[in-house]
């Protein structure tokens, strides 16, 4: 087995020597170009394009959660809270929900005549980033001294509390007969994004939506890559690997952890705001615990801590959930004489994927190098060798 691995590694290194140094940038440019022209290859309102849009938004979420779970090592099981905050930013600042006030900034002439708060989608995105970053820090605060699975439970509890607030918000007044949320009735008729020159996005032509979410993805990906290689990113990894050692080396624990929560939450908020606008409704029923686990599954399947893994995991599970299961394979059980639809057990499928990945390939599909060494025990093996006889050429 190890001989085979060594052989594979040799071939990989040989292949790496063959490609020119500008290959990485060329590949990135190529991928972006493919991403931009992708919607022209399919119908403007096809199920595939719809699945792609949702999958890309999920990938944004996975990239955000990867900052918290992967890089900083804080297992956040309440990530749905930021989906909720982001979506409610659309409901609050981009619809007629707060009918008692009239605020209009940078919206289409038609929308400017309506009651309520109507901000341009870019401003809503910024609002979602700010709201979620603050909420992320508040949620992170009680977990600062906790480690491991206790963090998971506290964040889960916060996520559930936010969910309960979203459902019951229709009985919390904010003055003038207006309520905090619309609960399970949902805030409907939220504004479609509008930009000068583009007009309002419609649901018949999905291409503008795709480019919008693709742009968000590129921004989030860029920030992710830059942060990973920055001082902050290295501090996260140090904290994840050994908190005591990291703190004694002078890494500010509180600031570093809170930054992880804030940045991860901000990305989740951007995706949440996009979902709010795309689904044209903000309904408390969307913010269930299962959603948090769905995003965790993306990060785990892709490879915990790996940016490309989170991107791939998000796209993969997004496609599976929104295209493959409902559109392609939904009637598979009935082909075997079973009387249920595959979409009703989608969470069971994701649960199975989680167990499978964790037991068979714990480092995920596209592992981060450091994490994969750790998980496959190579580091431990090397440590063991260091402790015993010196290893060297005989």
């Amino acid at each position, binding site marked *: 087995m190890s001989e085979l691995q060594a052989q594979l590694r040799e071939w990989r290194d040989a292949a790496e020597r063959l490609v020119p140094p500008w290959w990485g940038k060329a590949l990135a440019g190529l991928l972006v170009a493919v991403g931009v022209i992708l919607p022209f290859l399919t119908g403007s309102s096809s199920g595939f394009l719809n699945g792609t849009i949702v999958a890309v938004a999920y990938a944004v979420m996975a990239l955000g959660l990867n900052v918290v*779970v992967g890089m900083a*090592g804080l*297992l956040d*099981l309440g990530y749905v809270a930021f989906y909720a905050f982001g979506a409610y930013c659309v409901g609050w600042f981009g619809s007629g929900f707060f009918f008692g006030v009239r605020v209009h900034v940078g919206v289409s002439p038609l929308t400017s005549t309506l009651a309520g708060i109507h901000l341009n989608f870019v401003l809503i995105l910024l609002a979602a980033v700010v709201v979620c970053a603050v909420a992320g820090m508040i949620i992170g*605060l*009680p*977990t*600062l*001294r*906790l*480690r*491991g*699975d*206790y963090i*998971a*439970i*506290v964040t*889960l*509890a*916060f996520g*559930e*509390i936010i969910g*309960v*607030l979203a*459902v*019951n918000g229709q009985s919390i007044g904010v003055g003038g007969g207006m309520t905090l949320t619309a609960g399970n009735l949902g805030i409907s008729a939220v504004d479609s994004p509008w930009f000068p020159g583009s007009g309002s996005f419609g649901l018949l032509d999905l291409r503008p939506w795709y480019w919008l979410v693709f742009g968000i993805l590129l921004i989030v990906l860029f920030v992710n890559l830059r942060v990973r290689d920055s001082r902050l990113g290295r501090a996260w990894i140090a904290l994840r690997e050994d908190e005591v050692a990291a703190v004694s080396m002078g890494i500010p624990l*509180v*600031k570093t952890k*809170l*930054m992880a929560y804030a940045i991860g939450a901000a990305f989740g908020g951007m995706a949440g705001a996009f979902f709010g606008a795309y689904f044209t409704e903000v309904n408390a029923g969307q913010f269930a*615990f*299962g959603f948090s*686990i769905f995003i*965790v*599954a993306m990060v*785990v399947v892709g490879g*915990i801590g790996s940016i490309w893994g989170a991107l791939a995991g998000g796209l993969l599970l997004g496609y599976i959930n929104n295209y493959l299961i409902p559109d392609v394979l939904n009637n598979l059980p009935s082909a075997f004489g079973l009387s*249920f639809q595959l979409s*009703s*057990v989608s*969470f*069971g499928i*994701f*649960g*199975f*994927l*989680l*167990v499978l990945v*964790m*037991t068979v390939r*714990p480092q995920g599909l596209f592992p981060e190098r450091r994490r994969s060494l*750790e*998980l496959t025990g190579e580091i431990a093996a090397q440590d063991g060798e260091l402790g015993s006889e010196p290893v060297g050429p005989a």
Partner: protein
Amino acid sequence: MLAARPAAAVLAALRRYGGRWGLIVALAALPVYYGVTDLVNGYQAAVVAGHPVIHHDLSRLGFNFAEGLSDGAIWALIAIGYTLVYGIIELINFAHGDVFMIGSFTAVGIWSVLGLSLTTSALGVIGGLAVSLVIAMLTTGSLNVLIERVAYKPLRNAPKLAPLITAIGFSFILQNVGLLWRGGSQQSVTDLIGAQKVVFTIGGVPILRGYIVAWAVMVPLVLALSWFISRTRPGRAMRATAQDPEAARLMGINVNNTVSLTFLIGGALAGAAGLIYAVYETQVWYFQGFQAGLFAFTAAVMGGIGNVRGAVLGGLIIGVIQSLSDERIGPQWTEAIVFAYLIAIMVLRPTGLLGEETREAG
């Protein structure tokens, strides 16, 4: 980031001076507040001929407690499973709540196999319940052992998040098994014992049959468990493994078997809780395990995780909080209130009411 440092200082101060008493005060706040308002302002006990009857006594609070302590019996049995497993391998067995759900479903399934119905004689119902209790406990116990073998044992030496993630995975798998088994909506089951019938009344507080069944199952099981853990050889092996697995192994204890035994016991207790739930609530649902699991986990943390007595105490307290909140604030807020308590415990005293310092929480 300026706010971060004072915030951490406030947190540390809260923990130092808050501690156990802070937690006790926080827990006493709800019953004391409602007791005082009942005595001072009174409450509407009934409507007679269109006129509300106002009482000024504590029997409404007593009713909350009676109901809460019986709900709490269910949470206590589930919480023991969390606390045993956490004590021995430091894993939050996330699938535990869903094992409880499977226990409920198994019990209800056995009832229909045995043909229990409203017309069955009292002796037949008691015998049938005893049989279904044993079968449900065996089923959930073996299921829990199976989960441990498949999903946790291969990851014993992996980073700590790995088994937690597989636990979540199994939780969803079991939920979908339940979904396919009995459908996606709340299902009524036969009210075999007449759970809402009043047996007797103490000080104006009606004691229902459901309460008595809950206690009649919970108390002997907890007593048997504490005898088992403190007096028998396998129980001693469990305690030794919880304290130091490596040293226990060196002393000749088969750690793998001990861990499996722990999962067997925890799962069996969850099965018993599942039976009580089905008898008492007279409805089952594939999603019941999610909330139950979180409530029971909160109970385990509240009592001090790793501590069986603490888990029972925590379960009963959570039951009372739940029933107070259900009846006085509104059931739609109960979940949020219990979780707010969970967060408060984590901030004030992560070691819980009776717990020792643990590495994770310290």
